[in-house]
């Protein structure tokens, strides 16, 4: 898939140009914004908006062997041996690893697994010039982790209700935070919010009646 650059006064105009070029609706284009451009002051320092666009619609199935190959390469270079099966589910590629040394590939709190998943996604995006969601799992770790985390969230939720004091959990990545938020979402007596900066934020579970702390970063993120 080849990307081409388009320009316009605004990004919208640039996208229109791209659509005119390919003769398709904007939904059928993969669009990357290179620069948004600026109006400048009194016409000075004006710059055009620039985008890169390409046609969408390459069959996703062709990505499966490639994704599998990338992960196999990574694991092999790590000095591990594993069997990988690839499958597809909606817009996501699922890679399952079977190995003797699952613990090593999972890592502390799934860190190694997350790192592998992140890198495979990145490499795949680089090779195919498109963003595809990749999920990597070892021995159903993700499902087990999800359950354990939801269980933990409920347990702390009960504790907060009993004591009436907010509890701050350890820093977690966005996926894990989402699990916690969702687990407690239905509970009217509790509220959850993420606090902190960067990728790893802390979830604060607090009782609804008593306000706990400032709401500097409310809601799931």
């Amino acid at each position, binding site marked *: 898939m080849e990307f081409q650059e388009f320009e316009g006064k605004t990004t919208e105009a640039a996208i229109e140009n791209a659509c005119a070029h390919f003769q398709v609706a904007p939904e059928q284009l993969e669009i990357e914004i290179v620069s948004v451009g600026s109006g400048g002051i009194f016409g000075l320092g004006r710059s055009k908006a620039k985008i890169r666009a390409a046609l969408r619609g390459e069959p996703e199935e062709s990505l499966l062997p490639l994704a599998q190959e*990338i992960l196999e*390469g*990574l694991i092999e*270079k*790590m*000095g*591990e041996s594993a069997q990988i099966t690839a499958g597809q589910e909606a817009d996501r590629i699922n890679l399952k690893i079977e190995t003797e*040394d699952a613990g*090593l*590939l999972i*890592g502390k709190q799934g*860190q*190694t697994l*997350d*790192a*592998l998943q*992140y*890198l495979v996604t*990145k*490499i795949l995006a*680089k*090779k195919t010039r498109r963003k595809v969601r990749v999920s990597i799992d070892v021995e159903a770790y993700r499902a087990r982790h999800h359950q354990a985390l939801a269980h933990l969230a409920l347990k702390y939720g009960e504790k907060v209700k009993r004591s009436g004091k907010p509890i701050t959990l350890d820093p977690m990545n966005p996926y894990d935070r989402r699990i916690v938020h969702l687990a407690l979402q239905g509970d009217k007596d509790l509220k959850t919010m993420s606090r902190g900066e*960067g*990728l790893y934020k802390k979830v604060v579970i607090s009782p609804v009646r008593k306000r706990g702390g400032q709401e500097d970063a409310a809601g799931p993120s």
Partner: protein
Amino acid sequence: MKELVKFIAQALVDNPDQVQVKEIEGEQTSVIELKVAKEDLGKVIGKQGRTARAMRTILSAASTKIRKRAVLEILE
């Protein structure tokens, strides 16, 4: 270990031929130096160092297997 870093870095950059990886082996800890083309530096570091961190995580996992420690240094 060197091959692992090279494999990842080459897959991420625009100029794979300019990826250089040097391994300085110590008794317990080896230092792996990664050098890429200037315009590719951001690609191996990533947003808020996320790519670099992912590489380091995988590197430490791989090195525990051989009972060693490996440190990744990205050279500018």
